């Protein structure tokens, strides 16, 4: 038995240094990468953003607000921190990590949507966190989403890259200084897509898209207030922005008036402005959207210009 245990130990321990070294190389490579989701995280962690205006929110931030347009119109250094597939809790966590590693911004454009304060258990695009799993902030941030990362992902070398061949290759390439370049510009990525008809298909299906009350999660609301209070304390001006939504989709949210009122009253409580684009003419033009909640590139750039115009009276240049 002794011989067997010794050989088993040797068998298990022998590849570990190699795996740890490989894992280190892939992590280090992805921490330099500009493709996939890593450009923004790397900018944040390397403290190279230092923007005086950051845009936070979900996909409705990252595909809607062009920093290039804000920069040129407002003579600002804007950066889009929008995170696809997220609700407010995740967006706030990212903002806190941003503040930890970068100079605090003067302005935060927080984009809004009706389901922003809803509960969310899903860790969307979990791959974006893989090279940073050993970072305590990322660990704390992702631990809230139970079941995605466990002992194996945190401590066993390379296990977190299970079935992520493309990421491993990108990590190796970036480590060798030959990594790919992502399509985003300072976190923004316009979507040159036509209307995808998913909304029409859903509404026309037998299940339909019946209006419902969007439940507001109490923790998310508390954190939203915490965010507003933090910015107020730090002299960061928050501007809440509700970007356009395709007009036929708006009635899906039965309690939309209450939710809008909640945003308005929170903004008022902290003496911050709110810009609502739900009445904007863009909302009625299907050609400006690629789906019910997202403007396409043309729509997003028109919207960014309109936003810049409205912001020009609110920000000190």
């Amino acid at each position, binding site marked *: *038995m002794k*011989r*067997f245990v010794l050989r088993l130990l040797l*068998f298990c321990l022998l*590849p570990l240094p190699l795996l740890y070294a490989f894992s280190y190389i892939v992590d280090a490579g992805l921490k330099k990468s500009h493709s996939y989701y890593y450009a923004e995280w790397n900018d944040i962690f390397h403290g190279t953003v230092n923007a005086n205006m950051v845009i936070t929110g979900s996909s409705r931030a990252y595909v809607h607000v062009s920093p290039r347009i804000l920069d040129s119109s407002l003579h600002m250094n804007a950066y889009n921190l929008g995170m696809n597939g997220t609700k407010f809790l995740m967006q706030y966590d990212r903002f806190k990590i941003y503040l930890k590693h970068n100079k605090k911004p003067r302005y935060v454009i927080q984009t809004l949507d009706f389901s922003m304060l809803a509960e969310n258990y899903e860790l969307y695009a979990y791959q974006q966190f893989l090279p940073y799993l050993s970072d305590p902030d990322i660990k704390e941030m992702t631990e809230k989403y139970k079941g995605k990362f*466990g*002992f*194996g992902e945190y401590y*066993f070398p*390379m*296990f977190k*890259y*299970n*079935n992520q061949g493309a990421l491993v290759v990108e990590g190796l390439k970036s480590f060798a200084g030959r990594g790919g370049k992502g399509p985003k510009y300072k976190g923004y990525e316009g979507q040159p897509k036509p209307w995808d008809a998913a909304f029409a298909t859903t509404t026309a299906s037998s299940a339909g898209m019946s209006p419902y009350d969007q439940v507001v999660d109490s923790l998310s609301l508390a954190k939203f207030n915490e965010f507003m209070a933090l910015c107020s304390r730090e002299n960061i001006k928050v501007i809440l922005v509700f970007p356009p939504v395709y007009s036929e989709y708006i009635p899906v949210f039965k309690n939309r008036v209450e939710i809008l009122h909640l945003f308005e009253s929170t903004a008022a409580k902290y003496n911050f402005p709110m810009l609502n684009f739900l009445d904007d003419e863009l909302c009625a033009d299907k050609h400006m959207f690629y789906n019910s909640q997202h403007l396409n590139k043309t729509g997003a750039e028109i919207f960014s210009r309109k936003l810049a115009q409205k912001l020009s009276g609110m920000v000190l240049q």
Partner: protein
Amino acid sequence: MLFNSLPFAIFFPVVTLLYFLLPYRQRWILLLMASCFFYMFFKPEYILILGFTIVVDFFAGILLEDARDKVQRKKYLIMSLVANIGVLAIFKYFNFFNANVSALALHFGFTNNMPFLKMALPIGLSFHTFQAMSYTIEVYRGKQKAERHFGIYSLYVMFYPQLVAGPIERPQNILPQLHKEHFFTYDNAVTGLRLMMWGMFKKVVIADRLALVTDPVFNDPHHQTATSLFFAAVFFSFQIYCDFSGYSDIAIGSARVMGIKLMQNFNRPYNATSIGDFWRRWHISLSTWFKDYLYIPLGGNRVAVPRAYLNLFIVFLISGFWHGANWTFIIWGALHGFYSVFGNLTAGFRAQLSKVAGLTKMVWLNTNIQRLVTFMLVTVAWVFFRANNYKDAFYIVSRLPGFIGETVTAIASRPHQLKFGVPLNTLGGCLLVIAILELVHFTQGKTSWNSILQRRPAYMRWLVYYGCIIAILYFGIFEKRQFIYFQF
């Protein structure tokens, strides 16, 4: 506890180490406690059901052996069978019968107010119930002495490696092994771990990968092309094989490390050249159970030909029902029954046909045609096994031939538009893992992997192990998927 989970990765070495460190007389206590813990990891309260059948069968065995006359012996056997089948009837089949009675009553204008049982099916119920029944039947037949050690008998039913999905063991194989002192041997440990590794590979690398393709298709068959339905059906054949045989391999391997030899449950079933041959290779512990305890008592083939065919059909029908309380499983069983009867009826004609076509001279071709036809028949039957309901199953089967037309049309006109229903890299990954499986099977046809590895130098063996482990860890799917057969 799932075999493909971190808790098992801790549980197994700890239990095995303690097993060999403990004095022989106390090992059964450890194994029984470990088995209880293993089972209760799923849902603790279900152990009470298991406890009930264990107590009933333990005493039934003793009473059977002590009974003086045949009538009394029969009485005790019936008592045991009623208890076991009763548990199955209540927990597995009651809601199915109730739903069908309700539907029938509604058809005739009545209402059935019998309430439904609101509880999930205890995991592995059919497996341990059948294993328990085989004990009392064997004691009744006088082929097995009644076990008088309650702990050992409990362990016979509850031995954790095979508790929830078999192999369904016979008392003659397991009980003596549970009494015997097993010493640690290097050979058992290595053979067992190899088998566990291969079982894990089949489960997480092959079966769960194929599930990524089959699940969405079977869950929404009406929005799929014939090509994607075809691939899903074929992939499911491999998925269920790798899922179930993977479980069996891990079970057999983990018992083997402790020196306990469980029976073989699979023998390259898709190499079968007929449906009869398939059932000699697939879920062997269940098919032999049905043969010994149902088919032969019904008269087997030592009766008039029509009756023998009826016996065969009944066995398959009940086998289908054993799998699950759903019409899809009953149709699946009936289909296999039909295949078997039809196969026997036409055996002579088919042999004649092969002779006329000159296939008998081309043994290789003849065998492979038989294998292909058997695989296709089995695959069609698996559609019923997997589909969410029998309407979906009939729909899928009706569209399977459309795959040929779709492919031919696409290749002829627009090859770049050939729709597989899944991304090409996913499809490629699935085909690759199937190719690896078949390659291993091909080599196993000549000699076992154990002996192949044994003849190689240590560094080559280690390279194979590392390759397999890397595939499991980095290309396996870890989404806490249960084994398909857990539901039975």
